[in-house]
């Protein structure tokens, strides 16, 4: 029997059989201005030659699965003959869902997996539980770890003591990659060019130019300098999807500090946007979200846990999710924690090589664990006992 591991994120699905490699695929549908009648599903996005003005149809809202018809279209495509060719009667699915998932969504999930697709068995869990499994697998001597999972919809801080999730320590900050991209769209649209319809393009701008500042006040000063002195300033050449397929930053030596470029390219000039946007992860109150930033929330979480365990959490902080990839993210978090945590306690923040697929890899390890068969609910179990058996067995 095969096991399909699916870390079902609100932006991308991380999917693959446990004996194969992972693939990262958009977990949504799209419509494009150029072929308006067609709805593109998941990786069919690659067929769209001009993704400007791309229209998104997402199965998730605020991090929770609400649009089942969209989700099923994506899954039909992923499980189907074009992609993973799943033989449901001979396949177990290991699938993730958000922390504190709503009861009704959990029940819909059981029905879809067992009744609609008819998987042979299923294990529903949180992405964090798989990340923790991954971490303890690579560091068997550690007892605790604290995950900082910063994804598309939000950021979660989740403590694990071995395989046990310590629910009382979970903290959610309502800042994720989607908010950052929308915020960047908003300020660029106000300051220089209307890009509100260009989520796809501006998300790429965000990934290409944004970084987490190590000294916010100083970067703000540098960003106010004129011309050559302004080392924060970059000029980003937007793609036109004919001669320029992908946007890029003008090399510093080609930048025109005064006057206009004569090349006819469409340029965005980015200055304080580069670090003020990811700053929302550290200071959500900068845009009026009255919540702690990540460093403060990490301390808040750990302080709610048994005192004798606290030093272990500070030493085993693991970063997952796409926002981890902002340059400087790990260093800033470690430095801020260092200043918040009593000096005698060591602080260590680990950034895995692939923070996006870290939990999927943990799922892959779990699928090969000898205990895996005892952790799943089989379709037979479900048909006999219904939702109760899932509720009892899955730690969600």
């Amino acid at each position: 029997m095969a096991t399909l591991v699916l870390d079902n994120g609100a932006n991308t699905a991380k999917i693959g059989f446990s004996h194969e490699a992972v693939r990262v695929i958009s977990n949504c549908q799209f419509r494009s201005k150029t072929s308006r009648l067609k709805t593109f599903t998941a990786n069919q996005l690659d067929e769209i030659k001009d993704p400007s003005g791309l229209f998104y149809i997402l199965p998730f809202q605020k991090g929770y699965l609400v649009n089942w018809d969209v989700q099923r279209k994506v899954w039909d495509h992923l499980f189907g003959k074009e992609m993973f060719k799943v033989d449901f009667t001979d396949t177990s699915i290991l699938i993730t869902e958000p922390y504190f998932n709503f009861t009704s969504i959990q029940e819909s999930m059981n029905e879809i997996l067992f009744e609609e697709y008819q998987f042979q068995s299923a294990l529903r869990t949180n992405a964090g539980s798989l990340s923790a499994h991954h971490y303890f697998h690579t560091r068997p001597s550690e007892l605790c770890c604290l995950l900082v999972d910063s994804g598309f919809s939000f950021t979660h801080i989740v403590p694990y003591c071995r395989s046990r999730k310590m629910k009382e320590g979970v903290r959610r900050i309502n800042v994720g990659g989607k908010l950052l991209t929308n915020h960047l769209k908003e300020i660029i649209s106000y300051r220089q060019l209307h890009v509100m319809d260009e989520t796809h393009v501006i998300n790429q701008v965000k990934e290409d130019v944004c970084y987490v500042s190590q000294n916010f006040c100083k970067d703000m000063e540098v960003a106010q300098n004129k011309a050559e002195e302004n080392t924060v300033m970059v000029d980003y050449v937007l793609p036109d999807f004919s001669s320029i397929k992908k946007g890029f930053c003008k090399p510093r030596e080609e930048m025109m500090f005064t006057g206009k470029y004569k090349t006819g390219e469409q340029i965005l000039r980015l200055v304080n946007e580069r670090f003020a946007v990811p700053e929302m992860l550290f200071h959500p109150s900068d845009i009026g979200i009255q919540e702690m930033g990540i460093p403060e929330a990490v301390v808040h979480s750990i302080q709610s846990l048994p005192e004798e365990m606290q030093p272990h959490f500070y030493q085993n902080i693991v970063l997952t999710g796409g926002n981890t990839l902002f340059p400087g993210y790990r260093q800033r978090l470690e430095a801020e924690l260092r200043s918040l945590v009593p000096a005698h306690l060591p602080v260590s923040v680990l950034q895995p090589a692939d923070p996006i697929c870290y939990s999927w890899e943990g799922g892959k390890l779990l699928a090969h664990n000898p205990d895996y068969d005892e952790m799943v609910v089989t379709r037979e179990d479900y048909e006999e006992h219904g939702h109760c058996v899932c509720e009892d067995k899955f730690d969600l």
Partner: protein
Amino acid sequence: MVLEKKTSARVEGQRRVLDEATRQRRLTRQLDALEKDNFQDDPLSSLPPPGPTARLPAFSENEEPEKKRRKTRGDHFKQRFRKNFTTLLEEENLSEKPEPNYLSAAAPVSSLPPRHFCCVCGFPSHYTCTTCGGRYCSSKCLCTHRETRCLKWTL
């Protein structure tokens, strides 16, 4: 001198000042916008009325006759129209459920002092617009702010 002062006071008096509730509503609307999936119209909906071959996918009552064969299909298709995040959250009735839960897990308010940035240029700001409470850093930015956003976006 006295005359001048009077004039400016009169102008100040005439300028509309947004009350706290309006300012709060405005902030909520700005934050809600940051959750939006799209700002443009669905390209499909901007097409001329579809002909017989170009029907919109229908998730309507047509599903009903199939109900006997498999119960869940139609249910889930319809759920899409019935239940958004807010509805689902309300149905969970979390205020009466034991903690920790979705609501109790929200990170509390920061204990750090708030920082202020110019709503025009994004640099640190020291001044507050008396009309709307927005922040600005210089008279140049205040001017832009008044011309563009100050009293727009209000209900």
